[in-house]
């Protein structure tokens, strides 16, 4: 093996040394997984033990109308690009959650328009150039720059298409071992690592702001009657200023959870973490999170995306 090979392949030799029996527990065939609107990815049958697991992003996604609403105004979009070849770029993933607001169908249209506009912008400016093996140069915008523009573009389109609507918008892009987040509203992104759950976004809600300046305790913020009041959202307000952005390094095995307030607003952080840690399969974990929210009353639409970095 030459030094050249060392750089190109995803180091399968190392994997062989560390390989143990796969810990993935797949649901038994007899267990019914409730059908989810829009279809779902079903877990694959268990792999042969002797074959090494390729380094691959895994993710699960689920959205549910909840117990009290008549329609689902959340939108969820995921795109994962994994090319397996000797010459491949690292895996690429894009995950978006949007929670719409507004009367009639404004909420669901707003969240849909926002999520798809952002995704299209990112696909055109980041993913397609990657696939085209475009030459690396300073002419290309960076992922954070593309995300910022995509947010602005989503804001413009929602204002044009759904004038009375608004939506939260939380987008995550994973490329190699880096996570890029852009965020407006009160949907959330959590980073889970080694038993720690870190909230990496900030809620753009009045209640949170009051809490930050010490005018509400965390419990009071929970009980605050107008806790859904946002001071920043896509499609609302004059200009979209100050999109929150964050970059994080992802360690092997770490997980990213994106969710709307229909989840975090009714299921507390410890309970969420417990479900995630106890469930080996990411899709099943998402389903269980939805179920937990529904069990707690399901007052709002519930959306969750859980992404797991390869080990």
């Amino acid at each position, binding site marked *: 093996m030459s030094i050249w090979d060392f750089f190109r392949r995803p180091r399968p030799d190392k994997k062989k040394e560390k390989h143990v029996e796969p810990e993935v527990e797949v649901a038994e065939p007899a267990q019914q997984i409730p059908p989810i609107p829009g279809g779902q990815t079903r877990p694959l049958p268990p792999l042969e033990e002797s074959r090494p697991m390729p380094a691959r992003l895994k993710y699960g996604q689920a959205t549910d109308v909840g117990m009290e609403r008549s329609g689902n105004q959340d939108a969820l979009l995921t795109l994962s690009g994994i090319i397996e070849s000797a010459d491949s770029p690292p895996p690429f993933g894009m995950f978006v959650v949007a929670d719409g607001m507004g009367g009639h169908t404004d909420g669901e249209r707003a969240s849909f328009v926002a999520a798809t506009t952002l995704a299209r912008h990112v696909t055109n400016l980041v993913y397609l150039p990657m696939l085209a093996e475009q030459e690396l*140069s300073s002419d290309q915008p*960076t992922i954070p720059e593309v995300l910022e523009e995509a947010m602005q573009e989503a804001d413009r389109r929602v204002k044009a298409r759904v004038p009375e609507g608004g939506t939260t918008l939380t987008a995550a892009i994973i490329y*190699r071992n880096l996570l890029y987040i852009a965020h407006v509203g009160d949907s959330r992104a959590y980073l889970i690592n080694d038993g720690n759950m870190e909230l990496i976004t900030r809620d753009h809600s009045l209640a949170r702001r009051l809490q930050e300046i010490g*005018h509400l305790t965390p419990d009071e913020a929970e009980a605050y009657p107008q806790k859904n009041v946002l001071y920043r959202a896509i499609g609302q*307000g004059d200009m979209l200023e100050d999109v929150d952005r964050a970059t994080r390094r992802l360690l092997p095995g770490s997980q990213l959870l994106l969710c709307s307030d229909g989840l975090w607003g009714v299921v507390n952080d410890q309970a969420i973490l417990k479900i995630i840690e106890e469930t080996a399969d990411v899709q099943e974990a998402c389903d269980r999170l939805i179920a937990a929210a529904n069990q707690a009353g399901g*007052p709002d639409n519930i959306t969750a995306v859980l992404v797991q970095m390869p080990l």
Partner: protein
Amino acid sequence: MAYDETRYIQEPEDPSQSQQPLATSYEGTLQPELVLRGRYRIQGVLGVGGMGAVYQARDLNFPEVTKLCAVKEMINLANDPAMRETTIRNFQREANILATLNHPAIPEIFDFFSEGNRAYLVLEFIRGKDLEALMNIADGFLPVEQVRQWAIEICDVLGYLHSRQPEPVVFRDMKPSNVMIDQFKKIRLIDFGIAKTFDVTKGHTMIGTEGYSPPEQYRGEVSPQSDIYALGASLHHVLTRRDPRLEPPFSFENRPISLFNPDVPEAFAEIVNRALAYEPQERFAAIDEMKVALEALGSGGVRPGLSQVISPDGAGISERLSMAAGEVLAVWQFQVEDEIRSTPFVEKGVVYIGAYDNNLWALDAKEGSLVWKYPTEGGIASDPTVEAGYVFVGSEDRILYAVDARSGRVQWTYITNGRIYTSPCVALGHVFFGSDDHNLYAVKAANGRLNWTFEAQSPIRSSPFVSDEMLYFGTETGDFYGLAPDGEMVWRFKARRAISSSPTVNEGLVYFGSNDWNVYALDGENGFTVWRFRAQRPVYSSPAYSNGKIYVGSVDGHLYALDALNGREIWKYKTEDQITSSPLVYMGVVYVGSIDKYLYALNAETGDLLWRFGTEGPIVSSPAADDGLVYIGSTDNRLYALKA
């Protein structure tokens, strides 16, 4: 400033009779010519409020003159009977309050009546513009002294309201658009409507954040202190031109007034800040106190151009310096025969430095006495590196030298075809260096035998950096390479201008600057740009990493501290001239030299100046540090050793 009354609508030429039918339940805005109550002829809309429009109307009871009035309309759209009740009561409250008030800043109320589901307040017509409109029209800041005067008048009228018996009247809606400036340049408080009920619907509501409301108002607590906060918020907006409705709520402290408008005296800003305290009891106890404080400022303190604040980016610091400069003395200095343009290297008590006098010098690190010197045939711009007892350095004479560190005797040389300005990097048993002949060389450290060369497309003046079995360097055409240890190209990144800056690597990210004004952070494994930061001029300086931050200087004179993972500016410090050299972080202090002849020592976390040391020539080289001493060479031909 001219106060044109665009709010004043011209009356049409033929002001005759034709009584229109009375409005009973009209949809939408009243049209011109409509007459209300047989007395008020609508002329046009002055503005639209939360509950209906405000019209300009003519009072027909005075047929021979044009007596104007403002007619404020309130439409009761509530379906819920309880809401209807509340709304009606709110209308009446406003009318009643206005009817009993008597203050020059409060418009007189002339009439109040209802028709169908609408109610109307007939008010004194005010010719002028509100503060929000004035800000929109103005190009820059409104005169600070004028703002102070208005603030005093507002305090006066609010004080009047707060002292009403039997119950104080809290205005509750203090904001620039509710303060009109009339034709006499006096303030008038408008819009006493208070109905602000939150719609407690399920799910999200978007609040066009009030921006001026105090935090406790969201808990339903309203007191005279609320008006004080709102006045503070309005003044903050006017003085900084930053609309609080576009910012996160209660975030005024993130936007200090002096940062935006240096003409505002510190004392004035302090009054505004106190009014903006989160806790009501920490604001002024009464609005009269605030008024007294504003009056005490006097017009003298408000002279424009008088900047009493030290701006955060470092200008105006000469007083602190003259105190500090006296404390910083060189421990020793050594004079060579020409400029020092390269960075010293300290190893085992000896500091090695190259100079434009063609010599490689070895000096005692503590005393500054000469140990040896080695003459090359060309100026040395390259930084020496010491490894395994050899000092490696390149020279303008095209040769890379390996000199014994102790004796100064040359061990081997490698001759290239171009001048060498880069500093060699020693790793993996090899010396890597670039030359103006476009090649990157990998030469065995022990004996100078060539292992391989890599041909780039232009001179290489960026010193290579080896990390994790990858070699990184830039070229004068803006190419940046990631090579494998055997010289194979793994990836290449193209910038549009030269990369003379040498890269530094930390946790998988490669950092470097370019003449295209950007600082780049690339993924070391594949060359993908993770972030880039744009300075205001080219970046020749090589970045330094420490504690989650990247430090880098620019020709724009600033030293920047950026977040290593996302490139956001944490702080910046402005020196008095260009920075072309690279900073060094040592023991929590970042050192950088500037063309302004000074070596600066700044707190690495905050960017605060600790001291600066003046040399007699521009500093184009970077410092080195060891054992409590910082070494810096200057183009005044000296190498200085300073206490860290």
